[in-house]
Each structure stands twice: as C-alpha cells, then as structure tokens.
C-alpha cells in the first residue's frame, strides 16, 4: 500500500508526464533532453564508469589479499564506507580535497573518486563473499605449481568469481548513475552535471516537471541492468 502510493504511483505519473503535453502524447520533452542534456547523459555514464573501474581497482586486490590471508582490522576498515551516508561522503571528500587539490573536488575525477570511496564497502562485501565461495582446493592446486599472491588472485579468484563480479559491477554502476547527494555536495556551478542534479534543478528551479521526468526515464532505462539483476535474483 505504502509502496504503491509513495513509489509506484509517482513512478507512473512521472513516466506519463514525460510523454504528454496538455493531454496529448508527444516526444517533445525527450527532444528537450536530447537538445540540452545529451552531453550530461554521456558525462554521467563516463563518471559512473570511471567510478566503477576505480572501485574494482581498489577492491579486487584488497579482497583477494583478504581471501588469501584473513585479517580482521583491514576487513573492518573496508566495510566502514557502508555506514557512512552518501551526503557525508560527498562533504568529506570535498573538504578533504579542496585545501590540497582545489580543482579536483568538483571535477569528474573528484566525483568519481568520492563515488568509488562510498562503494568500496559494498564491493568489498560482495567480492569477499564471492572469493570466499571459491574452493580452497583450487588455490592449493595453483600453489602446488608455484603460484603466489597476485597470480592466485588474477588467475584463480577473479575468473572463478566472474558472474559475481559482473553482478557487482552492474549494481555499483547503476547506483553511481543514480547518485544525487555526492555530486550535489561536491560540484559547484558550471560545466557538465550528473543526471540527477539536472533532474533536481529542472524540477526544483525551473518547475519543469515534464522534462525532469523525461530525464528520469532516461535514468530508469540506464539502470535497467540493475533491475534485471534483482529480478533474476528473485527467480533464482
């Protein structure tokens, strides 16, 4: 009931609003999106992709190491970002970067860095679960023929966790696409913007609900991968 009223109904209203003007079906709002925001759509995909790559670049070696040699304190540190809210992460990275690298905080790299920091916790959780699901006997067999640390991670743990890595990647990428608080806290003024920031200003400052909804629908479509992953988990 609550979900229907507060989630499904508004979702339907926004999809409908994006497709109509004065009661008639139209694609005009999508033309506005294409005209004004196509650059921002690409920018958002780029930032989310960079953030996802950065997350995995840190999480794969860290979790691989932890799989081979369990070490509580580091595992604890990796999970900390799970419990730090998005808004706090955005602000923390902004104040951490701005005194030392003033240009970085609001740039695409700064946003990608903050997103990667926040998603490290989730990635660690998913990857450790996947790596720990790899049977010890495979690792022993590889050790017997002389493989150590990095080789074990690269040639055994990562390939054997392929599906889990793909799922984690889709979930993290979609979450980054839809992120609002981190770019809001970090970016100031001009230049390309993340999609959710565009939705917020289009709706809040221009009062243009129809175009904001069309932007939203673009975001829903981009996040379809995550929806499919969840749906598959449901049927499994």
């Amino acid at each position, binding site marked *: 009931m609550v979900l229907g009223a507060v989630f499904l109904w508004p979702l339907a209203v926004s999809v409908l609003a994006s497709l109509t003007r004065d009661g008639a079906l139209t694609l005009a709002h999508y033309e506005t999106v294409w005209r004004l925001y196509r650059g921002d759509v690409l920018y958002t995909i780029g930032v989310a992709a960079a953030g996802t790559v950065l997350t995995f670049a840190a999480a794969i070696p860290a979790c691989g190491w932890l799989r081979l040699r369990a070490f509580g304190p580091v595992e604890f540190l990796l999970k900390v970002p799970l419990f730090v*809210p998005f808004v706090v992460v955005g602000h923390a990275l902004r104040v951490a970067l701005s005194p030392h690298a003033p240009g970085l905080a609001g740039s695409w790299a700064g946003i990608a860095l903050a997103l990667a920091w926040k998603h490290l916790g*989730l990635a660690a959780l998913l990857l450790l679960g996947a790596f720990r699901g790899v049977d010890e006997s495979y690792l022993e067999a590889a050790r017997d023929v002389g493989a150590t640390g990095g080789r074990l991670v690269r040639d055994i743990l990562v390939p054997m966790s392929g599906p889990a890595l793909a799922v984690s990647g889709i979930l993290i990428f979609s979450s980054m696409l839809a992120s609002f608080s981190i770019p809001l806290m970090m970016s100031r003024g001009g230049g390309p913007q993340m999609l959710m920031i565009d939705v917020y200003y289009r709706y809040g400052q221009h009062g243009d609900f129809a175009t904001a909804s069309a932007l939203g629908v673009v975001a829903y479509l981009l996040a379809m991968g995550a929806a499919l992953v969840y749906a598959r988990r449901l049927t499994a």
Partner: protein
Amino acid sequence: MSARALVARAAGFAVAAFLIVGPLTSLAVWSLAERWTFPSAWPQRFGLRYWHRVATGDFLEPLRLGVLIAVIVTLVALAMAIPLGYALARLAFPGRAVVLLLFLLPQAFPQLPVFASATREFYRFGLAGTIPGVVLVHLVGGLVFAVWTMTAVFRSIAPELEEAAWNLGASTTRAFVGVALPLAVPGIVASAVLVFLYSLDEFTGTLLVGAPFVTTLPVYMYTASLGYELQIASVTALVLMAPGVVLLLVLERFLKSDYLVFFGQL
C-alpha cells in the same frame, strides 16, 4: 607468522587506513578549524568554537526531529514487515512473486525522479513539507529494507520448530507468537537498528518532500555547506556518521552480509 608476512599486514593496514580513514579525518580537522584560508595546507587556528554550536537550538532541533521521524519510521516499518516477512518466508500464497518484485523496485530504480514526482502528488494532499510526508517517503526505503531482512530472518529459523508446536495443538498464530517470534528477536533488533539509521541518514527524499519546513540533520548539513559554513557541516557530518561506525564496531558479528548489501544503497 614470518617477519615478511607481518610487514605485509602492517603495510596493508596502513594503506587501507589512509584511504578509508583519511577523508574522515579531514572532517575532524575541518570541524576544529577556526581559521583556514587558502592556500594554507593546514588550519591557522584550531578551536572548539564550532562544536559549541552543537549545543544550540539550530543544531538540536533538526537532531530531535530526525530522531522522532526515525522512531516512527522504524515502528511502522517493523509492524508491517514482521508479519509480511513471515508470510514471504513461510507461506506460498498467490501473488508472492509480485510482492517480492514490488519490494525490489525501489532498490533498482533511481529514487530522485520518483521522489520529485511524489512531492508533487503530496502537494495535492497537503503532505509536502510536513512530518507525515517525510515519514511516508522514508517508509519506502525503510520497508524495503525491513521486509528483506525479516524474510531472511524467518527463513533462517527451522520450520520444524513450529511444526512441533502445531503437533502439540498450538494454532498457527500461537506457534508464530510463541515459537518463531522469540527466536527472531535478535534479527528484529538488527533490522530495527538498521531501519532507524537509514531514516536518520536519509537525505534525498527529505530534501524534496520536507522542504522547506522539515529539516533533519542531513538537510541541515547540506544547507550549511551551501552557505560555505564548512565547519558546521563537518561537525554535523561527524555526528551523523558516528552511530553507523559504532554499530559496525559493536555488531559486526551479528550483521549478516545479506542485510548489509541493502544498506549499501543508502
């Protein structure tokens, strides 16, 4: 353990500590910086001036309001999620898959455009800018979270225990209240704590639906940072972050990773 392995561990810990704790430390530095002008790499004067502001009304009011909302959200979410989670875990009823799917959607789709649309609908019913409106919007995330954790909790309790109670003549309700519910208490507590934290930290929905009258701490922090009151925002950020980190520290063993995966979406 060999010396080399020990060094590797120390190095690994140092790198992780720098990357994870580093940005958080800068919150602490900023919260103590009474004077810090560019391009100095370090504050020129330290002090507790901004922490004193925490004791004043304009900080305590959003805190009080946020806690009130979080308590209501937690109670309502659990009251709905305990029976629903039990039903999803134990019973095969028509439409079960639809219900499960319904509880996945808010997780999978970008929330901001939906909340913007919800705010517009709320205006028609006079809910925008009110506490009930914010509670409703928090219930979306809170319910999803509570239902999934409660389903996992009841799945982990062996059905044979209730079957034994039925054999001894207990009704379904009695078996639920007398057997399954007490066993589920640790899971219920964990779920309640996480829903409470979710609501306390929720920003996007509160900003949209609550504006301009309902200000919780995350919104207060955003407003402060917008006005370049970075110290006030940093103090608020530390206060917001503390319960989560304490929880992780105390409860790590009890928090199953299923619960945490959903929490990562905060």
